């Protein structure tokens, strides 16, 4: 794959300027929103933004390139541990730590991506699942470096002085995470519109046809894995700042499976799908947790109610909205448009579920 040189003129193309404009508008709206809500909601907002980064990357790999990864939690762990190790005994600025952690995860992703490019379907799922199970154990094994089960602590980011002395740290990390998430989405959105993105999709849809068209299938798959791992690393790094603690228990198999469930619930292969999925991922447990504690249930029931509801949401969503929230919304819009057009031309509104325009 040829590395394309950045052309300033491309800033004027409709795609990039549209993405930048949308991102800027979203940033302003979210800043205003985060200033209006309390610290706990800011904390959740930051979590959504962090998950958006990870799920957008995973959606690129799984939804756009067709490689299922059940091990992205482990790649997030690489980012988080890089951050924690860099910050141990040093006071490095965030602007250096984030790219360094991102690079570390991208390197691990490159190594694993080469292996993954040989595997298909459930075999890839099994190998990545083993990664999710195996990698956190290294942290327990070499506890003198990685802090063992207790993990490593990370000092929270303090907001700059010009924002005022009593600016809540939750809001500041939310702002950082939102900015990072929007930058990630703009970059990946552009990548998807480029020839690289088209190659990703071609490989997903038909490997043999893609190879016949001159695409190096294995290399394309490795590139997708690296980009996706870099996103996971960035998310992991921010996760370390956000939670203040990097421990193996935070990066178990459950995290990897949550990320996959988020992109399927949100909508495979689309940027907005990753956003919807992250919102579900953070808000369903938060809402049900609050609900369970307000109901005064016995602890065995109350403690497990959020998990029960989350599982039931996964099952019901797969049965009712098979193409995710994004797919469901697209279908609604298409139906509405068809009905509107049908009033004029008496044309029956048939909606194609597998509309490729969804990418």
């Amino acid at each position, binding site marked *: 794959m040829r590395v394309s040189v950045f052309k300033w003129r491309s800033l004027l193309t409709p795609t990039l300027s549209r993405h930048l404009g949308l991102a800027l508008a979203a940033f302003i709206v979210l800043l205003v929103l985060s200033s209006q809500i309390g610290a706990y909601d800011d904390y959740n907002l930051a979590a959504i933004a962090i998950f958006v980064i990870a799920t957008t990357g995973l959606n690129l790999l*799984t939804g756009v390139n067709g490689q*299922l990864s059940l091990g992205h939690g482990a790649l997030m762990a690489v980012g988080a541990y890089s951050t924690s190790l860099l910050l141990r005994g040093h006071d490095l600025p965030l602007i250096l730590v984030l790219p360094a952690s991102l690079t570390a995860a991208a390197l691990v992703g490159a190594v694993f991506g080469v*292996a993954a490019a*040989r*595997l*298909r*379907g*459930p*075999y890839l*799922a*099994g*190998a990545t*699942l*083993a*990664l999710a*199970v*195996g*990698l956190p*154990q*290294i942290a*327990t*094994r070499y506890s003198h470096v990685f802090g063992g089960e207790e993990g490593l602590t990370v000092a929270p980011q303090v907001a700059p002085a010009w924002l005022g002395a009593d600016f809540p740290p939750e809001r500041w990390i939310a702002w950082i995470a939102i900015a990072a998430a929007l930058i990630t989405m703009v970059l990946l959105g552009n990548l998807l519109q480029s020839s690289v993105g088209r190659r990703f999709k071609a490989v997903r849809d038909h*490997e*043999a046809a893609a190879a016949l068209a001159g695409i190096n299938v294995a290399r394309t798959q490795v590139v997708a894995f690296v980009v996706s791992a870099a996103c996971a690393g960035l998310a992991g790094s921010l996760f370390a700042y956000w939670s203040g603690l990097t421990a193996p228990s935070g990066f178990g*198999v459950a995290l990897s*499976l949550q990320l*996959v*469930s988020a992109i*399927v*619930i949100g909508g*495979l292969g689309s940027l907005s799908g990753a956003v919807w999925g992250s919102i579900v991922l953070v808000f369903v447990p938060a809402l049900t947790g609050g609900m369970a504690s307000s109901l005064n249930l016995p602890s*065995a*029931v109350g*403690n*497990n*109610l959020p*998990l*029960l509801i*989350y*599982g*039931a*949401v*996964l*099952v019901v*969503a*797969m*049965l009712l909205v*098979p*193409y995710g929230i994004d797919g469901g919304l697209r279908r609604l819009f298409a139906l509405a448009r068809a009905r509107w057009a049908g009033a004029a031309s008496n044309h029956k509104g048939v909606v194609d579920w597998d509309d490729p325009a969804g990418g």
Partner: protein
Amino acid sequence: MQRFVVLTLNGLTEGSIYAAMALALVMIWRATQVVNFAQGAMAMFTTYLALFSLENGAPYWLAFVIALGCGFALGAVVERVLVRPVENKPPLNVVILTLGVLLVLEALAPMLFGGQIRSFPAAFSIVGLRLGSLQVPFSGFDLFTLVSVLVVMGLLLLLFQRTDLGLRMRAAAFNPEVSRLLGIRVGRMLTLGWALASVVGALAGLLIAPSLLLYPTYMDQVLVFGFTGAILGGLDSPPGAVVGGLVMGFALSYVGGYLGSDLETVGALVILIAVLMVRPRGLLAWRAQRVV
């Protein structure tokens, strides 16, 4: 040397359980092209049902049969009610669906049976057998585990290779369209496949419960190692599942014994990746098939 024998016997016992789990996964994969991530949680749930029966005065073997019977029913219900409707949806959907079932079962179990860690009785003594004056690190229950897994595998082999029903099940999995034309009730065969696989899974859950103790997530690692074993052997091959499960048992036992128990899963990861790099479709895949 003695240590090696201990680790080998331990690997054999655990490997046979992973083999049973892998076999359950392979049966479901062959029937419906689904990796059933809820397999472990389903086995956990049926083992809780066995414990519940025991606590209400049922003798051990009745509880054992109840668990296997409930496994059969649970597998059939999950296939018919939940998996069938997403059959023609994107392939990832059914993966997420089984993950949802896993979460629901793991939340439901502590609600119904209590979340604390419980001990589960073994059918036979767990003290090492005696050969003359020598006590070997292989208990009566280990022997029972090994024999029951072997018996189940033998029965399945008989079913699939020697009976009309087994032939119909294989045909339904191999080519649903043609099977339907030949008058096979394909849907019913797939449901039966899931039900039988869940019985095998439930057996694995009952056999490992005495050593792992019973808690809502106790089958998670058995599922992961069973899945790894199935991948290792090749998802399309039942003998491969058995070989893969045993390889996992031995490998985990040796890695844990010689290098430290905290490296077990890393060892499993390394072995899996190494094997898949040489044989991307598992050890016993007879051909490299790729749909074009």
